[in-house]
């Protein structure tokens, strides 16, 4: 297998890496850089546990080859410092087994970066690519509502 040189910015840090040509972005993050907050739940884009932000948009890192990320900016859960979203998840009981949580937080972040006043429909749409088997989603939705409300300047709902 040939190695390919890529320049990629991950969580604000520049990396110059040599990667196998068939390596997926998720394998690069986990196996090479040990950024294990990015989870693999299905390996085919159904569950969203591997969600990362790539050039400003959420993507499934299991469906991106590492070489495609050349010259891209990647943000993983380790690069998210949004305590408002994270605390809302904790306080609303939106975290159970936690395996979907990083992906959910990134999906929520991506939504709230664009829309600080989402309605319930928009929230559910924004997390529709992320599966959770524990919570039944309601608490995740209320966590995102709460985070939006705090970000708008209110205390909470």
């Amino acid at each position, binding site marked *: 297998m040939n190695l390919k040189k890529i320049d990629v910015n991950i969580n604000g840090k520049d990396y110059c890496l040599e990667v196998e040509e068939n390596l997926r972005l998720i394998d690069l993050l986990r196996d090479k850089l040990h950024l294990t907050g990015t989870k693999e739940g299905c390996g085919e884009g159904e569950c969203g546990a591997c969600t990362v932000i790539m050039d400003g948009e959420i993507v499934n890192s299991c469906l991106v080859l590492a070489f495609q990320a050349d010259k891209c900016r990647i943000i993983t*859960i380790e690069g998210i410092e949004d305590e408002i979203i994270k605390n809302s998840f904790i306080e609303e009981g939106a975290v159970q087994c936690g395996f979907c949580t*990083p992906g959910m937080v990134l999906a929520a972040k991506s939504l709230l970066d664009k829309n600080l006043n989402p309605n319930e429909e928009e929230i559910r749409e924004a997390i529709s690519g992320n599966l959770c088997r524990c919570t039944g989603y309601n608490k995740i939705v209320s966590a995102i509502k709460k985070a939006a409300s705090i970000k708008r300047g209110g205390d909470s709902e």
Partner: protein
Amino acid sequence: MNELKIVGKSIKKIDAKDKVDGTAVYPQDIYLENMAFGVTIRSTRPHAYIKVDTKEAEKIDGVIKVFTYKDVPGKNHHGVVLKDHEVFASKKVRRIGDPIAFIVAETKEIAEYAKNFVKVEYEEIPAVFDPEEAMKEESPKVHDRDNVFYHFKIRRGDVERAFLECDVIVENVYKVPMVDHAFLQPEAGVAYLDEDGRVVVIASTQYPHFDQEEIAESLGVNKDMVRVLTPAVGGAFGGREDITVQIHLAIAALTLKRPVKTIYSREESFLAHSKRHAMKMYYKTGALKDGTLLALEAKIIGDSGAYASWAMNVLRKAAVHATGPYYIPNVKVDSFAVYTNNPFTGAMRGFGATQVPIAYEQQIDILAEKLGLTPIEIRLKNCFREGSETSTGQILEGFIPLERCIEELKSF
């Protein structure tokens, strides 16, 4: 009364912070020095005699060893109630997905590649997939015994006579399918030897203490030579009660004296763990004109698949809950757990109490319709209250707010 500190309060989960930060450690997140990687070879046939040849795979550069039943130092079996699982299939596979071999290699890529070179010869034999077929004497036997391995009975009152007194009788058959837990974190684990020579197995499990026993038995060592650590568990719902990665990893780590890791893909996860029991439920329920339930006769057949797992407990629970939360004076219930060559079934949320409502609640609705009662009226007439006696003779005491709960539904 003193103010309660925890009851009635919203408590933050102790590990929630690590989980939102992405720093909580699941087994797949563990990377150790000199760690080898294992992949499992599984049966692709539901019922067959097998011959395994690992020679070609072991010649591949980077393959350290291919483990089969011959490499199990202790007992080649496990199981939560009956020890009917094999660690590695020795002579015969009983379902698609039975583990046959465990390839340990320097890297995951090599181990995956080597899969193509483990030769499994299958001599297929007749299989049985329908539990009712499996109950017949002439059907293929999944194990060296009758396929029906559990029969639970409830007898109360005189069902035959009571049916004669009923004004209306409803008889139906209900079927519910298998369900997978589909917990979000696929099975994974790491095993290594600690400085005292003990085998340490890190795996997401619901039963570290059971696992310790089963691992020790398969390794042929004392329990105190085995440590099982449970890191973050990415959902379970009953699906992590049976052994999956644990013994394979322990044998490999003990034999090779180095850390070994394995991670299942989503597909393999579906093959590896139990399912919710599919059930076929024959129901005959009778009532008087005014809606009073008088008699129930039920036969519940649970498909246990290739292994027993928790089938006895699940089918017992299904029978105990067969009347639903309704008082019925005359009850005859028979529940069966049956081996087939299907995926094996075990614990899943509700444990047998989840399947029967499909039958008993529909029976009640159909009775109500025939009697010109509303679904609420017939339920209020029969529902459990304080002091009610269940079909197994339990007197319900304490707080039984079912009546209030049904009353509340009137407004919908």
